[in-house]
């Protein structure tokens, strides 16, 4: 446990050194909220103010999704130098390495989402002690699941070039299918079906239920889905870290070049 905590503290130190990233990463959600929200809202039946209010939980999910998955990029940088190897040869349980990384990414995302949550009253979302507690719970579950996605991906790659690809091919589709920007209940059937396989949809749904009292999924199912995603990806990352330098031959061992 203490080793996992050590790794979390390390990542938080690096996060703090990257304060510019912290501030700049808030630009995207603010654009969604005040530009897309105002522009699209003005033409929607809900009206500008109501639409902004409606997508606020979705914008929280956006911040959580991109912040926590991109926090995992440090794993790739650590692999490029020998730092990850130095951790791997230390007697740290492999689950603690994976859990530490997932925890660190989730924590960073939660800090950023908390900064956004302060804006809730501005867009007409009023928080009671009960809804605050519920939304924090939903944020923690979502951040953990998203961070686990980031770590499971980052643990498998040695170049940061893969991240824009993941962002476009995986994160954005998951985000757009999640119902973050529109009510899933009114979406075409195929999108409703797809949402059931999208962890982001469960996260958005829990956040929206906590903040606005509306939802598409049953709460226990949404909670279970996020916990399951976190657990499965944690397990899968542990397996990658346990493998060490042994690869399944894809990255070709160096020895093969010179042996007859």
């Amino acid at each position, binding site marked *: 446990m*203490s*080793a996992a905590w*050590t*790794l979390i503290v*390390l990542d938080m*130190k*690096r996060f703090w*050194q990257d304060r510019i990233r912290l501030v700049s990463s808030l630009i995207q959600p603010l654009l969604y909220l005040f530009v897309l929200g105002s522009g699209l809202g003005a033409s929607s039946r809900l009206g500008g103010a109501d639409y902004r209010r409606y997508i606020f939980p979705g914008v929280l999910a956006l911040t959580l999704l991109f912040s926590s998955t991109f926090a995992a990029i440090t794993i790739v940088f*650590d692999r490029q*130098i*020998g*730092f990850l*190897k*130095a*951790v*791997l*040869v*230390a*007697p*740290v*349980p492999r689950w603690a390495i994976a859990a530490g990384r997932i925890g660190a990414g989730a924590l960073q995302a939660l800090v950023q989402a908390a900064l956004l949550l302060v804006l809730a009253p501005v867009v007409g979302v009023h928080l009671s002690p009960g809804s605050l507690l519920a939304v924090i719970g939903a944020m923690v579950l979502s951040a953990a699941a998203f961070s686990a996605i980031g770590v499971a991906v980052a643990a498998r790659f040695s170049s940061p070039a893969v991240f824009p690809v993941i962002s476009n091919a995986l994160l954005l589709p998951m985000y757009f299918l999640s119902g973050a920007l529109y009510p899933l209940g009114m979406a075409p059937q195929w999108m409703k079906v797809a949402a059931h396989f999208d962890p982001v949809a469960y996260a958005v749904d829990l956040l929206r239920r906590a903040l606005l009292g509306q939802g598409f999924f049953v709460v226990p199912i949404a909670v279970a889905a996020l916990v399951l995603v976190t657990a499965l990806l944690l397990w899968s990352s542990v397996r990658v870290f346990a493998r*060490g*330098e*042994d690869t399944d*031959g894809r990255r*070709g*061992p*160096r*020895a*093969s*070049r*010179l*042996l*007859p």
Partner: protein
Amino acid sequence: MSPNAAPVPAPADAVIVVEGVTKRYGEVEALRGIDLTIRAGEMFALLGPNGAGKTSLFSILATLRTLTAGRATLCGHDVTRERAAVRRNIGIVFQEPAIERRLTVRDNLELMARCYGLGAAEARRRAGTLLEKLGLQEAADRPAEQTSGGQRRRIELARALVARPRVLFLDEATLGLDVEARRNFWAEVRRMAGEGLTVFFTTHYMEEAEVADRIALIAEGRIIALGSPRELKAGFGGGVIRLSTDDDTAAAAWLAGRGFKAATAEKQLLLVHADPAAVLPLLVRELPVPVRRVEMHAPSLEDVFLELTGRGLGGDSAPAVPGRFNGAAP
């Protein structure tokens, strides 16, 4: 010099015991049966060209890869089945930097100490002691990226030692350092070996291998020679003649016809003979190809390796071996 000798019981002070270890990557056999016993306090060098299996053996002992067959133990713990126990006994300096550049040197050491389960106070104490011991106090509170190349290697050494390992692994640990920084680095390691630390290292620099108590030469996944630097050179027998001619291929053919075994190394012919001084005039006189340059010297480790494998240690990416052509006796 008895490679792959019949297994004998490991001595009581054996720290690393390797028995019949093989490693396969798909179709490729990187290690083809390695047997080794390394004792406490020994400085042991693993030499070989790129692709000989050095990295595979190193990574297996360092718990970063699994072995295909055979058995290897470190401090009595199986390197694949009892990895956590093995890890508690080892410290490793990798070729590449393994410190977080943005953290201070001290923070880096404390972080690693915490990864080994030490408490905050103990971690701070250990980091302080090592910084002093390795002459790093002045750099201690700077971000690691603001230190010199020589300092960085010493920081790596401190990182590897922070948990007080019984075995120190060094993988090409001095790559890129200047001669003086290399000398300081090895003096420090030698001193620690004197205090009982077991050191297992790989290197491309021949003069570094000379500091080892024993050297294993590895080629194509097998240990082809094992012994102290002196034993290896003595077992080689005689001296070395290096010839440079207008047509090395023709010269090699001519030499072969007269029972000399000539190896080609970096546009030179390398010839081993029990009495090089006696045979040299004859060669120069009788070779049908004009001779441009002749050298004669006592065998170096490089020569031993070349003779045993018919090819040099320096692979395509290996640095040139300093002092190789000066003909000086070691």
